[in-house]
């Protein structure tokens, strides 16, 4: 600490010589900014709230350019998907949450006539290669045709509910920690990915049936609540736990409920995919649909464009999303040397909006 104090001023004095150069550079930059502003005159600017997972898509220069040629400049703000409906919506043109339940809630609030499903992605669990043998031995995970499936989700959830720790698993020398086996997720009150985890867990615990009456909810609620409560403090949006996974590693995040697209996007941007990271596909799983909910006429036009424009659809595939044409997705995987099942056979529907809300509200009470 002492050293830094001395070096700081010394370095800056030496470098002070460059003043003239920097002034020149900033002058040049200003000129460029002007140029950009002028061409932007014919373009409408839209403001929207989006689930955090789509932020990088909207920041992609190709997406920005394609939208611009279609007459749009889009400003986005990251908000937990389930939070959007509770925000002040004035001044915004559209909401673009993850997940049909969040989109329905938003649609009901703004009374939008039409909404625009754009692309979708399955719920998956990000994990680590070193844990695979342990999970295989427990009969939880099985590899089929290059994909790791969670073939016994029920067993995984039961281990969580029973407080089994990683160190309790037979022959686990790879990760013998005292940590409980828990799938980490976002805050179920705020974020779609956690709500999807709840939807999946409720199906599994309800003997592979979609929850459809109050009695079932009451029966399974303690189990479902513990899956969330025992995680401790959670983040409101899906980028958080995934960042735990990518920056803090297996010690923080051995199993994380994420969108397949998050994983594929991350890996596709590395010079080489990180081979220590493994994506697990629950059997069954469910899809998260990304649906534009317009608040204004411009928002509606944007929704329509995102849902139908072949170029934007293809760009979405570059971010790991699946679209109506599976060719885009297949090409993306091939180009980036990534592995994922092109078709997913075993997909369930989430419970009804009302049923899901009922469960979430009951869990919320336990957090007080």
């Amino acid at each position, binding site marked *: *600490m*002492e*050293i*830094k104090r001395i070096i*700081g*001023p010394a*370095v*800056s*004095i*030496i*470098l*002070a*010589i*460059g*003043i003239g*150069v*920097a*002034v020149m*550079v*900033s*002058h040049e930059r200003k000129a460029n900014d002007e140029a950009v502003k002028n061409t932007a005159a014919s373009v409408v600017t839209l403001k929207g709230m989006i689930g955090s997972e789509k932020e990088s898509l909207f920041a992609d220069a190709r997406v920005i350019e394609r939208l611009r040629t279609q007459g749009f400049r889009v400003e986005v*703000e*990251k908000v937990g998907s389930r939070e959007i409906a509770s925000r002040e919506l004035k001044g915004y043109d559209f909401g673009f949450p993850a997940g049909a339940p969040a989109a329905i809630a938003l649609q009901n609030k703004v009374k939008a006539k039409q909404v625009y499903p754009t692309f979708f992605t399955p719920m998956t669990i990000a994990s680590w290669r070193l844990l695979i043998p342990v999970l295989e031995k427990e009969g939880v995970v099985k590899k089929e045709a290059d994909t790791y499936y969670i073939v016994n989700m029920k067993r995984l959830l039961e281990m969580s509910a029973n*407080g089994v*720790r*990683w160190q309790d698993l037979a022959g686990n020398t790879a*990760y013998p*920690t*005292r*940590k*409980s086996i*828990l799938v980490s997720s976002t805050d179920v009150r705020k974020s779609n990915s956690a709500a999807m985890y709840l939807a999946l867990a409720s199906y599994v615990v309800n003997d592979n049936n979609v929850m459809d009456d109050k009695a079932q909810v009451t029966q399974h609620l303690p189990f479902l609540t513990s899956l969330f*409560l*025992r*995680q*401790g*403090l*959670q983040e409101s949006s899906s980028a958080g736990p995934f*960042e*735990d996974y*990518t*920056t*803090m*590693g*297996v*010690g*923080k*995040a051995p199993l994380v409920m994420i969108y397949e697209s998050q994983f594929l996007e991350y890996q596709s941007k*590395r010079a080489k995919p*990180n081979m220590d990271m493994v994506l697990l596909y629950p059997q069954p799983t469910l899809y998260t649909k990304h649906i534009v909910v317009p608040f204004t006429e411009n928002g509606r036009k944007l929704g329509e464009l995102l849902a139908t424009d072949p170029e934007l659809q293809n760009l979405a595939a570059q971010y790991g999303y699946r679209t109506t044409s599976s060719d885009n997705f297949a090409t993306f995987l091939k180009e980036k040397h990534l592995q994922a099942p092109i078709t997913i056979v075993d997909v369930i529907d989430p419970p009804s909006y009302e049923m899901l809300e009922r469960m979430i509200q009951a869990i919320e009470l336990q*957090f*007080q």
Partner: protein
Amino acid sequence: MKNIMVGCVIALGMLLAGCDNQEGGVSASPPAARADNELMVLAGSELKDIAPLLPKIEAATGIHLRLEYSGTLEAVEKLQSGEAVDMAWLASNRYAMLIPEVKSRILASERTMLTPVVLGIKESKARELHWLNNPKVTWKNIADAAEQGKFTFAMTSPASSNTGFSGLLGLAAALSGKGDALEEQDIDARRLGAFFKAQRLTAGSSGWLADAYLKEQDKVDGIINYASTLLLMNQGVGLKEKLVLIYPQDGIVTADYPIMLVNPAKRDAYNKVVAYLRGVEFQQQMAQSTLRRPVNPDVQVADAAPNTLVELSFPAKLAVVDAILTAFDHHLRLPTDSTFVLDQSGSMAGGRIETLKTAMIGLSGADTTISGRFSRFRNRERIFLLPFSNEFGNAERFDMGEDARSNQATLNTLVTRVNALRANGGTAIFAATQQAYLDAAQRRRADPARFYSIVLLTDGQNHDGINMGQFAAWYAALPKEDQGIKIFPVLFGEANPDELRQLSELTGGRTFDSRKSALKSIFKEIRGYQ
């Protein structure tokens, strides 16, 4: 080229006036426009080491971040009270996220860098305890060693500083033996209490604690702090013996430095700043200068932390965290022995003595803010009041016990005494301090397992009794074991800063300046050091 630019901007920051003139030649924007680019950032005091990089942030984003530093809980409280800031940038926002009024003000949050809170311990001690190159050391082992008197450590106050807070939360989680989020009933008070018997040094901030450790490294074996701070200490010249970093196998708590948007009107600027902070350039420079780990996976790290560090879950309920903090203050930590040497000379008359009374009474329970609650007089604390003018009597003693009702009665008496203070007479600063010191030293001989400290508040020059030089000579002649009771002078009014600074340096204390911040907050801040 890039380096030259960056250097210029540093210089711009340092030679502000000079650069202004030069820039005026090419930029048409009036000086007022500059303020539009300035964002007020409520910043954790840990971020002072980012200050040298601020000019680079400004060069890349055109945004000037004005960092206003404070402790972690204090920052949370400022957010709660609605203080107008554009952003907040703290070592951790976990506590903030548990308070609904604060959480709702945080519109976006992005982590910027990482460093875990760990134990640094002298190499010889690590060898003796078989902890050298031993990845299996757990908090349980550490607690056992502490309980058996095999090592001593330094840690900040959990209510004032994020390292103490993380250390305590980590320890509580690990000792509970649970593998998931802690609940109130899981707190193992006995083990925790045993652990904190080995604490020898406390402080209100992590940076100050590191400096204090350097000064007192002969007296204490280890220090709980950020891994990055410990690594910097190892790179520096102040340590007689290198610190071995222990990353307990049963789990750590990592500071992740989230930058948070508070003012919705500044979202664009926020996005720009975040993009730069998480970009390769900042991440690389930050990692090099602070030794924290980057959050950008494209930036390589030099620091060889074990890659399977287990991260402990943070409680999801405010009640659990508050219960741990309260238990720490009142039951777990070593008890406090604090003397307040208070100037009631004639010059204190009027507003000054009233301010002093409010500050003291705040510590007695009147202050119900978050920081107020965690800076109150504690169970088992011994409080001494020594008001002085040109003359002074014996200090009055107030004993806090374990029982809430009798404690309330004690505090009521204390409040009555404080309210009865009358400004009158001359100023015998050093004579009064000397007596307080002598009494404290005697008590410490009889009962060493406490944190002893003396707070001295004065608004004037010394006119009566011994002077600073005589005090220093007297202090130097004390037996070694009677030295080192920290004096925390508070500058007030026309107090002589040089003399009071000498006093704090002599004893390893710290000077606080009430001309810079309110006396009430200073008294709360001092509690972190007691």
